[in-house]
């Protein structure tokens, strides 16, 4: 038996120790993360949040995302019946025009909610026939609504002194002293193409096509197609024209901001690059300027600028330009420090001056890196421009925050969200395409 070399036990020990340390770390990191998340959950008051959350709001929101409701309201004092989409003045049916599921004959209004649900308003009060349950019969007595319905009253009917309301799968019905109201829910975004006062409302695709191509002019002054485009563009409910402008403004902000930032940062980044600026103090100043601009942050710049320039896309574009010139200055100078010096020396050997060396020796080398950075930021700034628009008051961000703050036009919120996502995806693929074309094609 020959003895093994001496280091073996020590080596084994070291390896075991390292393994143990590794194992401890492998358990310690997830534990630390978990402890931190628990602390965060406590500090964010998650339990209180669950109590405060209003999940019925989520239901309203989801419902509005894909459907709309039509209000059929009778004023109990005057007996006047109005039919309005989403209860808005812009969506009120004009006198003499009713949807096919409403019948008005004298003082009797019949509303067919579908599936056998029928609501009738007449001189005695109102009745709601619910299949499988019976009839809710409401008559005003001494000004207060009195309900007669099969007992026991189920929990989808709520009865109080001054108001009776019922919510079923087909719609909602409520009777109060002043008015009786029925909501009918239908899928889709109503009036998306044409509003009720437009001559093109309610026409099928075939009819519209015929109108656009062969039929006589509705308005002799212009073609039907032009009229149609005008009616769509100025749709009062959805304001397509304004929305298109807002999207354009947002993209404009991103484009102007990114490109201007790049133009400002490019010359300055030479000052901050070690191989182009031998003066240490100047380099230090340039770098601290970039750090300062980045540190002040888009939010603060945006607030200061909107005080000076007022709300609008120019303010947003300048805010993006300032914030990003700091970022570009840093990344561009890093790219400049990483170039290959041989090409610059080659240019120098032909007797080129500093500017010519930069133009022919440096720029061609860094162009791909810079372009790819700029295009990446162009895409990312489309998103930032949405947020900045909400602060400075311009573009689609403003429309979105307004629509959310009114807390009722959720179908518009859904519309803007879809448009924003499409816009960002479009800019994403555009910048990707440009990157491939310009960098690989070069």
């Amino acid at each position: 038996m020959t003895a093994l070399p001496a280091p073996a036990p020590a080596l084994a020990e070291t390896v075991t120790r390292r393994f143990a340390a590794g194992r401890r770390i492998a358990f310690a990191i997830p534990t630390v993360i978990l402890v931190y998340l628990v602390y965060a959950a406590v500090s964010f008051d998650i339990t209180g949040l669950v109590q405060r959350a209003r999940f019925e709001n989520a239901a309203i929101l989801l419902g509005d995302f894909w459907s709309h409701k039509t209000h059929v309201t009778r004023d109990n004092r005057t007996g006047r019946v109005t039919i309005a989409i989403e209860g808005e003045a812009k969506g009120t049916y004009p006198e003499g025009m009713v949807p096919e599921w409403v019948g008005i004959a004298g003082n009797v209004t019949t509303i067919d909610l579908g599936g056998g649900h029928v609501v009738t308003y007449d001189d005695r009060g109102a009745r709601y026939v619910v299949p499988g349950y019976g009839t809710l019969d409401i008559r005003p007595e001494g000004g207060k609504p009195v309900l007669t319905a099969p007992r026991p009253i189920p929990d989808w009917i709520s009865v109080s002194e001054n108001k009776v309301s019922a919510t079923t799968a087909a719609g909602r019905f409520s009777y109060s002293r002043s008015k009786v109201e029925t909501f009918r829910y239908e899928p889709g975004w109503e009036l998306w193409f044409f509003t009720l006062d437009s001559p093109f409302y309610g026409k099928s695709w075939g009819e519209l096509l015929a109108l656009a191509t062969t039929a006589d002019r509705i308005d002799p002054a212009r073609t039907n197609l032009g009229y149609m485009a005008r009616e769509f563009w100025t749709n009062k409910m959805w304001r397509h024209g304004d929305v298109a402008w807002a999207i354009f403004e947002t993209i404009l902000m991103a484009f102007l901001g990114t490109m201007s930032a790049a133009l400002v940062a490019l010359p300055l980044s030479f000052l901050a690059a070690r191989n182009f600026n031998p003066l240490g103090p100047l380099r230090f100043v340039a770098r601290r300027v970039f750090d300062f601009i980045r540190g002040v942050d888009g939010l603060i710049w945006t607030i200061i600028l909107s005080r000076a320039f007022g709300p609008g896309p120019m303010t947003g574009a300048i805010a993006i330009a300032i914030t990003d010139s700091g970022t570009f200055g840093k990344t561009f100078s890093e790219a400049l420090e990483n170039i290959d010096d041989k090409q610059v020396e080659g240019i120098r050997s032909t007797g080129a001056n500093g500017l010519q060396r930069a133009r022919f020796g440096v720029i061609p080398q860094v162009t791909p890196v810079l372009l790819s950075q700029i295009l990446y930021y162009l895409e990312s700034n489309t998103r930032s421009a949405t947020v900045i628009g909400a602060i400075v008051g311009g573009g689609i961000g403003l429309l979105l925050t307004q629509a959310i703050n009114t807390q009722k036009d959720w179908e518009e919120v859904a519309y803007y969200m879809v448009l924003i996502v499409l816009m960002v995806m479009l800019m994403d693929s555009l910048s990707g395409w440009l990157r491939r074309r310009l960098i690989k094609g070069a």
Partner: protein
Amino acid sequence: MVDVAFGPEPGRRPNLVDPQAAYLDLVRRKRMYGGILLVVFVALMASGWRLAEDRNAGGFLGGLGQLFDFPAEVLAEAWEKRALLPAIFRDHIPALIETLNIAAVATLTGAMAAMALSLLATRGLARWPRLIPLFRRAMDALRAIPEIVVALVLIYILGGGPVPAVIAIALHTGGALGKLFSEVAENADLKPVEGLASVGASWGQRMWLGVIPQVAPNWLSYALLRFEINVRASAILGFVGEGGIGHDLKIAMQWGQGRYDEVVAIFALLFLTIVLIDQVSDRCRHKLVRGN
């Protein structure tokens, strides 16, 4: 042979009999394209700025004079009340911590989701190769939705507080980091994975022991960069929505004159925090990537 040298594209071929003329022709054409691009770009920029100015409430030159009015006013007032500043700093520290917590929790949860998503969406590593396009599109969608949209909708449902901002930022982080993580994982060496597969390791074990150790430094570096971005996003979301130091800033701004000392204090806190985080994370990232 000519095809190999000059590519298959149709169109005018260079005249090889006279290479100098051909070269000059090529240069001229390139310069012309460059010139046209430059003209188009300048025209776009000029008309764009003019249009933006038209649609702005205030003009550029008029605003330029007032640019320093607001900072000057704010700073003057803060200077008068400079004795109060330390107390104001102390008052806003909890809000600052909340902002940082929002960013940190969102980065952590987003990064964890991104780890799973990126591995599922990487060719050669995916658990279900057929579902790669699905996971990629999911990440694209997560990236495309701006944080503010999710945050504002969630504030309506969940009420105020920091949680809507956390969820909004985490969703976006998941998509953004997922893409970057997946690009890193694509370049990972597959030999350890094959070795683990040969001893019967499950997919989770292969990823955890074979891939993660390889990509961890780069992933961490990206996650740190994202944390920097998320701190800013969290401050902005606070300003537009609710929660954290952004919200304090909005209230102080709405109050206007008389509370400008608070505005200055919050600006300063935000600035110092962002610079500090940028510097620390910059140093860590250099170490992580160089140490590799």
